[in-house]
């Protein structure tokens, strides 16, 4: 049947709101009817709702950020010139009074042009400064404590994947109960000569002031520009050019050290997410691992 064959044509086209495709706006409805008419033949009902429209204005503006920022200046400036040229060309005396309606209209148009120019200047002044990524110098490593239950290790790996996908994180180290249970991502290369990643000396770390302060305050510490902090020497396992570090306490027994490759690269939203993820991680580890040293001896 015709509808059925149309369905088979529609089916393989993935529709994603972020895809920049030149499809006509009527196409989503077309797809919608396609699916709805033949979904009854499927055992699992397909999504029958509407597909989101591609927001081309948003895409256009975000892609041409610089041009859009200076656009009001050009529009305002051009209109200003046009009004003045109009006034001179029409032979009106260049007197700025509001007595004739022509002058009043000119003044209103000038006011609007000035508003546009000012808005353009404000937009230019609030342009965010671009910060470049600094690739960490070191070797990749993935060390995970061998005596962890599956639930804990899968949770740790999920945390690493989320952080490395979403944020500028390139190194993740989790220290709990005096042991380093995870070291993943980039690590400093050992200077001994074999080029192995530097291991985390958990005992030394837990005695250092950085760790002690974090545990005592119980709050996340964000070192947005690591090169300026003298406490950097307590983190020798991080690549030497790590730009930003977040130290997230995991309850009272552990800390997660997250190294990023951009100065001030972690947004406040990232910080909030990391705080809550840290709490979850602490709950998971505390529940599943009673005592790390005991489990190592089993």
């Amino acid at each position: 049947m015709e509808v059925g064959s149309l369905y088979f044509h529609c089916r393989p086209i993935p529709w994603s709101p972020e895809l920049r495709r030149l499809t006509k706006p009527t196409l989503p409805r077309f797809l919608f009817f396609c699916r709805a008419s033949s979904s009854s033949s499927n055992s699992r009902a397909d999504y029958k709702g509407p597909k989101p429209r591609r927001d081309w204005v948003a895409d256009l503006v975000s892609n041409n950020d610089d041009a859009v920022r200076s656009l009001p200046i050009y529009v305002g400036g051009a209109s200003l010139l046009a009004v003045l040229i109009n006034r001179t060309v029409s032979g009106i005396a260049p007197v700025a009074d509001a007595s004739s309606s022509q002058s009043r209209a000119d003044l209103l148009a000038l006011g609007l042009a000035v508003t546009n120019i000012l808005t353009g200047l404000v937009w230019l002044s609030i342009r965010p400064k671009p910060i470049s990524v600094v690739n960490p110098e070191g070797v990749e490593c993935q060390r995970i404590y061998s005596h962890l239950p599956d639930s804990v290790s899968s949770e740790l790996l999920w945390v690493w994947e989320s952080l490395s996908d979403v944020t500028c994180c390139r190194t993740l180290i989790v220290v709990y109960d005096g042991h380093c249970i995870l070291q993943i991502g980039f690590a400093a290369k050992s200077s001994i000569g074999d080029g192995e990643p530097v291991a985390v000396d958990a005992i030394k770390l837990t005695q250092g002031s950085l760790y002690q302060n974090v545990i005592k305050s119980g709050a996340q510490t964000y070192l947005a520009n690591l090169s300026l902090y003298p406490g950097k020497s307590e983190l020798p396992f991080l690549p030497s050019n790590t730009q930003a570090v977040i130290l997230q306490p995991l309850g009272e027994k552990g800390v997660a050290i997250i190294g990023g490759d951009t100065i001030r690269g972690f947004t406040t939203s990232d910080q909030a997410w990391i705080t809550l993820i840290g709490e979850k991680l602490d709950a998971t580890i505390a529940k599943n691992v009673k005592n790390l040293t005991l489990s190592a001896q089993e």
Partner: protein
Amino acid sequence: MSNLLYSNPLIQFKMKIIPAQFPAKKSTMKPASISSRLQNSQTPSNQQLNLSVLRFTLGIPGLDESYLPRWIGYGFASLLILNHFLGSDSATPTPAQLRTEAIGLSLAAFSVIIPYLGKFLKGASAADQATIPEGTEQIFVMSQNILDTKKEDLAWATYILLRNTNTIAVLISVQGALCARGYWNIPEEASRKNLLEWFEKQIERIGLKNLKDTLYFPQNSDSVLWELLPKGTRSLLVQPVLQVPKPGANQMEGIEGEGFVLLASSRGYAYSDRDKAWIGALANKFGEN
């Protein structure tokens, strides 16, 4: 003046007092740059210094200056029209006046859409807070016949979504387990006990179970999907939970959808790219189990 990152004047941003020199401000964008993060500071508990943005403001609290061009555009356009009809010396306006008025009206139209364009620029973030719509009640229901660890995961995930994003209502359905939390419009006929069944029925009707693509509706739209949502919803994000393919699995089979995470917000354009990335990472957690 040191190079600070600016944002909307009503949003405070954090700055660390660093006694060092900032690199010179470059006027060209580097191709490999990461656009900076100008977010609303919601965690005042850390030790960073809050500074208001140094920008021209009228100083009136609660007034959003970024909408000023729009009001000026409306005001001046109405004055222009008033001038056209009431203020002419002779009977008919001269061509010069008509030209000026045309320029003025098009400028006014451009001024009106300026705040809309400004919303999409990098670093813009809306100042209005998420409001709780009328007539909703706060609920927290979860399927009962699932493992305790699953319950904890669902409770934590709904909590973190409500807390960290501009969400008023969240609905997670994964592998047969359902959890709804936040402010929903519950019809009277669904009592506490069959709330879960009501949600299930709605999901079946829309067919969300087999979702494979992320849906993001930044603005209100009239469709069947929206009947489920609380009345004041302005943006909606549905993130599918896809099964993480096991190593060695047949790639031709395709990825099955295992569920979805649905987020509703009372603000338009509520989810930035960063928010969507985090929500996707959270959905992956459920896909791995």
